[in-house]
């Protein structure tokens, strides 16, 4: 959905850019003379951006709304704690287990990640699964992710956090049903 959002934004932006560029170029071609101030200031300056922006904003809000976490019965809850420079994950369904730099989730089920940090500000980002969310000391932010298919997804720390920033990564492993059951039985794959 975000990919589609991007293509819409890109197309719109390109059109507007070409339109403005055309208007400027035309200033050299047309004979100079009386120009209607209202047309430029009120119609182009005020009305045009307001209409475009209102449409865009509504679209953005709808997309944002759809991405919003919702209560569902098959929700899985995990915890992510960032530090310089690794990630530790814990699981509500498997108390006591802590995995380093690898997050296990079931595929095709919504997962809430409760994100926090042990030291500085970090951010949790799995580009192919969701947008990013910060890990702020003393606060817990919850991010909803969902993997459509089993597999490995690359995760990144995406708030600058010092000399180890480049390698502040982790892997998300999305299991199929059987794999997830096996994981819950304590068989670390």
């Amino acid at each position: 959905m975000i990919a589609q959002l991007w293509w819409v934004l890109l197309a719109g932006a390109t059109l507007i850019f070409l339109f403005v560029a055309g208007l400027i170029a035309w200033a050299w071609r047309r004979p100079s003379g009386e120009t209607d101030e209202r047309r430029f200031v009120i119609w182009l300056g005020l009305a045009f951006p307001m209409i475009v922006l209102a449409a865009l904003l509504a679209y953005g809000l709808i997309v944002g709304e759809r991405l919003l976490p919702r209560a569902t019965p098959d929700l899985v809850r995990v915890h992510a704690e960032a530090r310089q420079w690794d990630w530790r994950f814990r699981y509500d369904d498997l108390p006591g287990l802590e995995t380093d730099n690898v997050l296990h989730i079931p595929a095709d089920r919504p997962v809430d990640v409760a994100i926090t940090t042990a030291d500085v500000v970090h951010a949790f980002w799995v580009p192919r699964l969701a947008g990013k969310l910060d890990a702020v000391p003393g606060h817990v932010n919850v991010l909803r992710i969902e993997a459509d298919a089993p597999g490995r997804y690359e995760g990144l720390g995406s708030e600058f956090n010092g000399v180890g920033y480049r390698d502040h990564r982790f892997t998300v492993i999305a299991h199929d049903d059987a794999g997830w059951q096996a994981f819950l039985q304590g068989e670390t794959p």
Partner: protein
Amino acid sequence: MNALRRHRALSRIWASDPGWKGWFTTVNHTDLGRMFLVVATFFFVVGGILAMLIRAQLASPRSAFLGPDHYNQIFTMHGTIMMFLFAIPFFEGLAVYLLPKMLGTRDLAFPRLTAYGFWCYVFGGSMMIFALLAGVAPDSGWFMYPPLSSTIGAPGINSDFWLIGITFVEISAISAAVEITVTVLRYRAPGMKLSQMPIFAWYALVTAVMILTGFPPLILGSILLELERAFGLPFFQVAQGGDALLWQHLFWLFGHPEVYIIFLPAAGAISTILPVMARTTLMGYGWIVAAAVSLGVLSFGLWVHHMFTTGIPHMGLAFFSAASTLVAVPTAVQIFAWIGTLWKGRPEMHLPMLWLLAFFATFVIGGLTGVMVAIVPFDWQAHDTYFIVAHLHYVLVGGFVFPMIAALYYWMPHFTGRKTYFKLGHAAFWLVVPGFHGTFLMLHWAGLLGMRRRIDSYESGQGWEAINIIASISGFVMAIGFALVVIDVVVNAVVAIRGSRDPWGAGTLDWAMPTPAAPYNFASLAHVTSRDPLYDDPKLPVRLARGEGYLGDPDRARRETLSVDIATGAPRYVVVFPGNTALPMLMSAVTGLFFLGMLLKAYWLVPISALGVIACALIWVRGLGSRVPEGALPVGRGLSLATAAEAADPPGWWGSVFLLLANGTFFGSLLFGYAFLFSIAPNWPPPAYLEPGPLPLLLVLLGAGLAFIGPRFDTLTGQGATLVGLILIAGAALPLLSGSTDPTRHAYDATVWVFVGYGLLHCVVSLLMWSVVAGRRLTGHSAQTSLGTKRIARLWSDYTLLVALLTDAAIGLPGVLT
């Protein structure tokens, strides 16, 4: 007296000291404006070299040119230098140089303050350069998020350089802003109504007021973070009731307006240059002023869009997302009014116009990507990637650097008095602009492919190699182009032939003088009745040189100009400016010792240099105004006016009003921070709230009463009451603090100490002001000539008692309520 004799007489009065000494003692805005521009350009070159190091490192994958430690210092310093030491000072320099000329007056409102600000900039900037050369530069990114920038993440001295050096430099931003505001409002050519001001003056006014209200949150944040680092006051440490998010709010409360503080002056230059290039007048002057003002106001409601990923509630996101897209509207009004101006006239393709076209092409793209990242779900994906890096350079380079180069070429005949002769400028243009787009256009795409900003190197095989090598090569091409611009300017300044007075055929007063400008600007002041005085009367420059305007008679042998009514521009009083002096430089050097003492933890130096600053300030005010009234003096054209020394609202009073605006914003930010911690920070309430009991409250109420009523009686008793009142207010601090344990226990205690410290500082300042008033009484100043001083002191003591009352309420209430 003929024009030449008048020129000689005025030059003798206004000239800076000859030789190298003149550099340090000049208070002339033409000199200082040029000096600001040269130093800012120097910092642009330094920032550019750092950018080239960044691009060299990122040109290929797994580069081993720079390690992460150095890389982090380099990109942090690149951002910091470009934002604080290049962009803002460059605007200050341009405004300092141009404003008095465009407004048709002889200097800025407070010439010595211009010099003081300039030297603070130079000394503070030198501290940053030193840190860079010594390899201990800040390395936490230009927005310095704690805890990374605090003792936990950065135990070394690196962050201290940023917090202390930048705060020092901000003194120059605040003083320039006070100065610009007062100048635009009160120092115009007689007759020039607000609605007849050159459009650049409107932009400068809006920018200056934005600096006054935008920088204080940053200054507060820097002070709090430095207090945390130096003394362990835990404002940003969550375990003891602080919150890292507090910094982010304070920083972006400054940081977003900052972007418009950078853009608006450029827009002012565009609005000035574009109509001249199109041989017409600006379309929609009123609309453009309204757009600039609303940009200024709106930009203070947007800071949260830099924090979309920090876990702000969804409703908040929707609100700030809507507000952020809304700023595109006044921006569009300006863009389309400019295009309408082009349509209206006959645009000609001179070099400045070429750079303005580069502005349009670049800035419009930057604006469009800006709208994209204001859409929250998109920002979640683009935040902290190269998409943002590309976006911000489209806005900053397109929206500031390109218009400023246009301005440079447009005013170059003015700066140098010479015809632009060599044509290197065109070659430079064709290197810089394509080079720029080659560097940054594709980087949007790298960001969408997941390239995070601020990484020091990357692995191959992610599809980023081609983009990065193209970006780096184009970056070097652009750098060569910028170097050519600098060479072009220098060569033209040195060797070109003398040019005519108004080469572009512009209508504003800056071209109504011989160039390069004489130190006094105008041999006599014009009476202005329209927006383009030179179009109404092409002979105006000659008539001014012949002394047909105001103040054309140099007989009083001192630096004089006129101050006017804010709205109508009717002349009000004669201002007598101070002469050349090294005091501003000395005072800023002593101020520098204060900051140096903080930086090196040589705390014995801090009180000594504070006393030094006070001593300088006392010498500073001693020279102001004459002792006995001179009465009405002839100012030419049949008019007679008294001097500022006899006015109830002298320039110093207006300066105080706007300084207090900044100061009040600072205090407001402190209250905001306190409320934020109180309601959002996780580890609240503190172990115990203060319960000061009734004593401090009584002291403050009594003191405030006395300090309020005292100044309103012009007697010795009245002034005595004021002094006692201020001392009582200060005395309330003791019982307040004695209840508190140590300020390192909890952010609450730390905040209480800051409140009390701020209040005490203002008691001291007010006491000093009133002792100046008393001193004037003793040295035989007449009632008439000390009226203004008294009103200035009253302004400060009124502010102090307001602060005292609010502080008392803020500290006392939680204890009472719980």
